[in-house]
């Protein structure tokens, strides 16, 4: 018996903690000169350093330090005048050195915050998510487990290792615990990651593609009884690969925890893996016994001591804050608060802006992305970004409607066609033979046919009972396969039945 979300929040207060890993988009890796381009042939972007050949030494990528400082500044952090790299020691085949160069007790950025606005029952409300630290580290390689049913290491016949990703610069952004979000915890988690993503994108320091793993979120969730002081046991959900999943994962974990607690059980401290298909998490590695990473300062690297003047130089280059940009767009497009919030919530702001820049009217662009296209994405259970339709397509459709070549109803069919992979809007129009019936003769034939079939209704209209016309118009539209302009049909029908003006 699944507990309802309302039951959960009536009894428990969720506490969040979010760890976001961002792959920087530097040209070369964190500690060597290898390329960072995504999707190359396995093990072609490697060298003695990132393969950890005996004798090879790391050298810090200065561009990565610059990007990390920018991130810290954009997240309102203090930049440490002195920070160090540390070795995090553990064995894993896809980690060439069997230690990861990271930062431990001396991170480069500390104590920042991100304000996120979400829509609540009482209107828009701002939550402050405090950032504990931002630090640099290197990514691991990738293991591919071949054979076996699950694609996991257990039951696999053999494993393949790809070290192209090993050594890609990563920045980890860790929040302090986030209490006080109440029932909005899933929305706050999602809004935080979205805001972070927008900030990073605006900074130009990362591709921030969640689906490619260049932005990865681990969501820590715990519950405590409302009014309780002590924090509950948390779980750490990994593999959360979209904004939508962040929200689903937090909500799902809240319900799972509450069910366990209500049944008198306890939450196990562990990592959990989010599963896109079910929206549930499955158990991963237990963290009940804290792993001992034997951190110590990385002796192969010298401390990072950024010059204060350089930090100020970087601060001066920071771009417009996404929250300010949103206010600017809202004004320019004259969008009401609620609609704006809906766009942000659906994560369509960038795509709407792109559509507007291609010549579409802001209102129409918004209504397409937020309406029909969002609905289709929801039905398919995918993110809007994963649909094949582009801002160009939508701008083209809006233009066709404006030119009178499509009705709104026909335009929806074109959208469906584009999403179904039938091609660009013009191709869908051609293939499906979609066109507005402008020929009054054809319309009149249909009207006469319908009026003959529904003589009683036609008589009512003829006698001045205009609401009855709707049924006839509907029938005419059906007769013309929806390709007629409904306003023209109405005009001709009323004229035919002696009710024009």
């Amino acid at each position, binding site marked *: 018996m699944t507990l309802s979300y309302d039951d959960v929040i009536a009894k428990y207060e969720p506490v969040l903690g979010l760890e976001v890993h961002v792959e920087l988009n530097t040209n070369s890796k964190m500690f060597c000169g290898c390329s960072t381009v995504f999707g190359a042939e396995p093990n072609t972007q490697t060298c003695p350093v990132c393969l950890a050949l005996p*004798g090879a030494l790391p050298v810090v990528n200065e561009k990565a330090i610059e990007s990390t400082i920018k991130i810290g500044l954009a997240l309102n952090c203090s930049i440490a005048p002195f920070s160090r790299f540390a070795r995090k020691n553990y064995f894993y085949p896809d980690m060439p050195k069997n230690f990861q160069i990271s930062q431990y007790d001396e991170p480069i950025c500390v104590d920042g915050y991100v304000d996120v606005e979400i829509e609540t029952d009482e209107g828009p409300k701002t939550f402050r998510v405090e950032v504990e630290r931002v630090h640099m580290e290197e990514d691991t390689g990738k293991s591919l487990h071949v054979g076996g049913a699950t694609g996991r290491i257990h039951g696999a016949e053999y494993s393949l290792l790809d070290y192209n990703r090993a050594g890609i610069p990563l920045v980890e952004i860790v929040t302090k615990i986030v209490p006080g979000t109440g029932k909005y915890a899933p929305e706050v988690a999602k809004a935080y990651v979205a805001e972070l993503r927008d900030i990073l994108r605006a900074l130009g320091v990362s591709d921030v593609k969640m689906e490619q793993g260049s932005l990865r979120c681990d969501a820590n969730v715990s519950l405590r009884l409302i009014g309780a002081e002590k924090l509950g046991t948390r779980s750490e959900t990994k593999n959360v690969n979209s904004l939508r999943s962040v929200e689903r994962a937090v909500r799902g974990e809240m319900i799972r925890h509450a069910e366990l607690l209500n049944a008198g059980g306890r939450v196990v401290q562990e990592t959990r893996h989010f599963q896109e298909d079910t929206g549930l998490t499955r158990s991963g590695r237990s963290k009940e016994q804290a792993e001992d990473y034997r951190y110590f300062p990385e002796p192969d690297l010298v401390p990072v001591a950024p010059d204060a003047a350089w930090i100020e130089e970087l601060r001066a280059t920071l771009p417009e804050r996404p929250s300010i940009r949103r206010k600017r767009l809202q004004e320019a497009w004259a969008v009401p608060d609620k609609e704006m919030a809906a766009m942000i919530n659906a994560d369509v702001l960038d795509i709407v802006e792109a559509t507007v820049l291609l010549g579409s009217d802001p209102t129409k662009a918004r209504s397409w992305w937020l309406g029909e296209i969002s609905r289709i994405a929801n039905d398919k259970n995918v993110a809007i970004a994963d649909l094949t339709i582009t801002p160009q397509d939508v701008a083209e459709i809006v233009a066709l409607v404006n030119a009178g070549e499509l009705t709104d109803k026909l335009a929806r069919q074109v959208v469906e066609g584009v999403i179904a992979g039938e091609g660009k809007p013009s191709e869908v129009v051609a293939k499906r033979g979609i066109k507005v019936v402008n020929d009054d003769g054809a319309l009149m034939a249909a009207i006469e046919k319908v009026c003959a079939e529904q003589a009683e209704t036609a008589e009512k209209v003829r006698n001045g009972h205009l609401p009855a016309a709707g049924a006839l118009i509907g029938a005419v539209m059906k007769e013309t396969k929806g390709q007629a302009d409904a306003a023209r049909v109405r005009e001709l029908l009323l004229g035919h039945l002696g009710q024009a003006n």
Partner: protein
Amino acid sequence: MIRNSASEMAAKLAAGETTSVALTQAHLDRITAVDADIHAFLYVDTEGALAQAAAVDAKRAKGEKLSPLAGVPLALKDVMAQKGVPTTCGSKILEGWRPPYDSTVVANLKKNDVVILGKTNMDEFAMGSSTENSAYGPTHNPWDLTRIPGGSGGGSSAALAAFEAPLAIGTDTGGSIRQPAAVTGTVGVKPTYGGVSRFGLVAFSSSLDQAGPCARTVLDTALLHEAIAGHDPKDATSINAPVPQVVAAAKSGDVKGMKIGVVKELNGDGYQPGVRARFEESLELLAKAGAEIVEVSAPNFEYALAAYYLIAPSECSSNLARFDAMRYGLRVGDVDGASAESVMNLTREVGFGKEVKRRIILGTYALSSGYYDAYYGSAQKVRTLITQDFTKAFEKADVLVSPTCPTTAFKIGEKANDPLAMYLNDIATIPVNMAGIGGMSLPSGLADEDGLPVGFQIMSPVMKDERMYSVGAALEAALLSKWGAPLLDKAPVLGGAR
């Protein structure tokens, strides 16, 4: 010809009296003749060396301007990566591995046309003071084949003392260049930390490891020092400053007015009488040459050994984690159904020797949560105190001196089962690594009681390496005129032709 110094060989090459091919062949012949007894080499690159020698001769024939050591052969410690040449670090776990790249030291040697004869034996991963910890069997001291040649770089120093090579590369983490030099009657220098690139030096303890030159004379080590030193962008800890003028210092050998500080704590009880006698004698010679001898104290040196045996194993436990059978080297237990974890475990079980395992375990423990502050943390504090001791001492003296080791070469097997006794052999060399300063050992004669070589250690401040060369050259000249012939002339004749 093989008994000449490297600079003499270089002069003969420059004068056209011999060729690099002939010189290289003479050393290869010597290796064939004596190395069965010495076992200084793990790999002799006959073809590569002769090809390199022929190339140098061709350049010389064309009248190209060559570096001072062009065409002179060298023995390379097996801890240095050399492209295409087996590099084992004295360990089974790297058996068969041929690096796809050159270490910066090797690249510099090649740039200077120094001919690389092959790879020399060493304690596994440079952990040891006797070369007994090599997985490929011990090296024997040319002065007495039943004795150790020091370690970890016993192969390099033994090769010099046995006239198998006039130059060698060593690495020094706690004395691995200086102690073998001391017990084989040769010269070895650990430059300032960061003075020579560590890129391609297979790491034992990153914050302590330093490659350096080994030879039979102070001038030869200076020439080799300048050939391999300098800033390297591939090593973040490499110092970006001009290389100290060590060749000029070694040529002048002037100590007039220099203050030489005798470290009170590195002498006395525990030091063999013959070692102390040769040390005192050397001090007198230096005073006669115009230096002022002063006494300095370094009260924290007594903690150096203990701190070293926390820091070095801690770093090694992490540095050696990469030897996991996944990408290179030995692989054990890779049978159907075996997990990566079990392959890693079995390979490390079989591939590492006892001393390496001991240090990995020590280091893993010292870095563990709950013990870090007490062990690694305290050791780092001691390190700071030792550095401060040196700073204060260098306010009173230009260089510091001590015997290099408390004893002469001990018997093979004598301390093999007593690691603590073995560790004590490095008591005078370890503080230098802890502070990252320069250190040199040169022969100061033979101990009366056993007739074996004794080493004299000179320590110089960070990037003031030229000072130890000045003092070393002065002492070497004084001793040579006292002896009338190089100390190595007193070594027993080995199987091969002289």
